[in-house]
């Protein structure tokens, strides 16, 4: 703990307490929302208006500004979920458990968006709604992994036990995801020839690149906001019999 400066350590210590977490997030979220709004408007303007049309794909390449960040986020969020789950499992921290399950639905949403936008991007290029290319197939399996986490959590009544189960599942998943991904990439090179998802990516000029990075940043902020909202909802339900929730209700 010598590597962590005192104020940071104190901050995380306070965040582990449910009432402090609840109070802090209710003040944090409006700030994050403004930052998100700014980034998303800048990114969309850069991607939809400023960036020139791709010479091969025309304007359909603009779907990339949603498809690529959401694919990145689908994997980033899974890792976050596994890390939070691992912390909750080892240190038995309620809030870590809640952050883990709160990330699941956001991650599943990003995976779904990546799949749908991938289909819509591919249809005008390849003529079919679904292509068994490496990235789409990997994303589909990732969606099943997310649904498994969400389903398992819902199926177990005692939520503390459910959190432990989900943490184990997420950790096993995070070890398996690289294995699954590279198996699918390898499989795809045999059956499809060129890797389609690479062909979908246009040669990236800086005017096309910066909106992508801005959108990626915007999506990260969105993840934090959505995850915190879900965490707040989960927290009041889990802590409904505690003093601080009763005090919260009384103040209404």
């Amino acid at each position: 703990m010598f590597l962590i400066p005192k104020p940071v350590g104190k901050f995380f210590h306070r965040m582990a307490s449910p009432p402090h977490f609840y109070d802090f997030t209710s003040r944090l979220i409006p700030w994050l929302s403004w930052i998100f709004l700014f980034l998303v408007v800048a990114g969309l303007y850069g991607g939809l208006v400023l960036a020139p049309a791709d010479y091969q794909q025309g304007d359909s390449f603009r779907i990339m500004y949603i498809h690529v960040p959401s694919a990145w986020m689908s994997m980033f969020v899974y890792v976050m979920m596994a890390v939070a789950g691992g912390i909750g499992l080892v240190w038995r921290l309620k809030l870590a458990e809640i952050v883990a399950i709160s990330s699941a639905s956001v991650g599943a949403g990003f995976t779904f968006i990546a799949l749908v936008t991938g289909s819509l991007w591919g249809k005008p290029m390849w003529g079919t709604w679904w292509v068994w290319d490496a990235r789409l197939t990997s994303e589909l399996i990732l969606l099943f992994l997310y649904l498994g986490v969400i389903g398992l959590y819902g199926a177990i009544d005692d939520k503390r036990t459910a959190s432990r189960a989900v943490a184990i599942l997420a950790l096993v998943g995070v070890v398996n995801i690289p294995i699954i991904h590279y198996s699918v990439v390898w499989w795809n090179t045999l059956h499809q020839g060129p890797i389609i998802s690479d062909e979908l990516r246009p040669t990236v000029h800086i005017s096309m690149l910066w909106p992508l990075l801005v959108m990626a940043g915007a999506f990260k902020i969105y993840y934090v906001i959505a995850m915190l909202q879900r965490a707040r909802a989960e927290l009041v339900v889990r802590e409904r019999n505690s003093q601080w929730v009763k005090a919260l209700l009384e103040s209404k």
Partner: protein
Amino acid sequence: MNWQEFFAMGGYAFYVWMSYGITVIVMLVIVVMPIVQRKQFLRQQLLRLKRQEKI
């Protein structure tokens, strides 16, 4: 570039706007649903507590 050209997206209007549209809807649902659920739960819990106090 005028509005018409912008909406047409070089002929790919359906695909581009469908993508952005679905994304917006999914992202809205995912962030709004927990807020609604939390507020609903707090409301119901308040009623429950009041009922218990009467006993």
